[in-house]
């Protein structure tokens, strides 16, 4: 079911019987109709194995299952909300940025080292993502939170995009990313430009950037 953006910080989801969606715990603002909110111990889909996987990976965001019939308003902490429509491709996002997502999307955990080896792990540390990140795959909507407004930057094969790791929110599509460093002697003596690490994304897809360097 699509999410409707009411304003920059609030979305509305319509739930019909038989459908379900996952949302971050405590992110419900109001609802109409008969809707139930059940804490989801497994932190999403899959069996016990994927739950343990997420716990180990530190990607076990506190989620709840939303079921029933009615409309629900979501928002959290005054953060800006960006709705991303997925059409079969994979979204890479940090679990605690997820506000709500369609129950039909396939949730998974990805090891950062699998993209770019050791440099991928370093990238995870610099961006504050850790060694693992969450993936969502399929067709449906995802609502992602960001500090400040969100800008969608398209990535085309001819034009790779460089992003400040702290402003990075999420990306989807067939995208390769690597951390480019511009460390020089100036950084060693504390006279760096403050932009020594950059995330370089290339391929085809889109990256979402927040207008702030603050973490959630």
């Amino acid at each position, binding site marked *: 079911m699509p999410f409707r953006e*009411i*304003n*920059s*910080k*609030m979305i509305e989801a319509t739930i019909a019987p038989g459908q379900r969606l996952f949302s971050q*715990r*405590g*992110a*419900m*603002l*109001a*609802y*109409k109709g008969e809707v*139930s*909110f*059940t*804490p989801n*111990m497994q932190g999403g889909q899959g069996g016990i194995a994927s739950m343990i996987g997420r716990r180990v990976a530190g990607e076990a965001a*506190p989620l*709840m299952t939303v079921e029933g019939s009615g409309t629900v*308003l979501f*928002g*959290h*902490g*005054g*953060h800006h909300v960006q709705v991303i429509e997925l059409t079969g491709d994979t979204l890479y996002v940090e679990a605690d940025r997820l506000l709500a997502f369609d129950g039909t999307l396939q949730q998974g955990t990805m090891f950062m080292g699998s993209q770019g080896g050791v440099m991928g792990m370093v990238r995870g540390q610099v961006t504050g993502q850790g060694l693992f990140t969450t993936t969502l795959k399929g067709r449906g909507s995802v609502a992602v939170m960001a500090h400040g407004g969100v800008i969608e930057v398209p990535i085309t094969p001819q034009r790779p995009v460089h992003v400040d790791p702290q402003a990075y929110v999420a990306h989807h599509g067939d995208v390769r990313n690597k951390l480019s460093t511009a460390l020089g002697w100036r950084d060693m003596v504390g006279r760096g430009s403050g932009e020594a690490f950059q995330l370089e994304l290339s391929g085809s897809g889109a990256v979402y950037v927040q207008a702030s360097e603050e973490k959630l």
Partner: protein
Amino acid sequence: MSTYGVTGGGPVVHDPMTLPSDDNVNKYTFCVELKGSQWFLQKGKMIAYYGSIDFNGIGHGRLDRLVRTSFHSPLHASDWVVAEGSGKMLLADRAFDVNSYDLDEGNLTIRSGNLLAFQPSLSLKQSIVPGFLTLIGTGKFVAASNGPVVFMEPPIRVDPQALVGWADCPSPCHHYDHGYMTGLMGGLRAMTGLGGASGEEHQFEFVGAGTVLLQSSETLMAEQATGAVPHEPGVPGSGGAPGQHGQHGQQAGTPRLPGQLGDLQRRFGL
């Protein structure tokens, strides 16, 4: 009145003539025009003014009559001042969205921290719901909210932190969702605290005709003390000390569930 989306222009420079009268300058600032009239405003919310405006604390002898007719929250008086004179005054509150609302022989109840200013033609009273204030009468008031305010119609259940206020409908009641606490898994969850709570067990439920005002986030503004209610039998909340209302009161006031292990869970931070 928004200055956003203006292409090619720099910041808009205002002078006393171009400032709007009783309207928003931008999303975050509201301009009040005073022509010998008076406005009540919360302390510290005025950011600038043109002209000659006096700010007097309530309790100032000269304002006694005004306070008697439109300010019925005596213990709350020290947080408010009366602006009078002529000129234009800008109001803002920590970069929250600011909006004005017109009441016409109506009533509106609002979270005390969200109310910035109101015309003396309205009268301010403490709501029976702790932490909320009710405005009755005809006139304009200015309120802040974290993100734009969304208006909804009952029946609706609202997260306590997302509620800004309500107009014309009966006071809300508490609604508890404990459906998932039943059954074997629910029992285990209630016993052990494992699995946690969804964080949405408790809402305010609104029924009847009216409008409910929501803010789009769950970040609360600082609670303004609304003053203690008299210690009288039959007055809700009269047992509590001032300042204990609002969020703290809610958490402490959650009823004990059957099968819960006393305060053990809380001690372990579950």
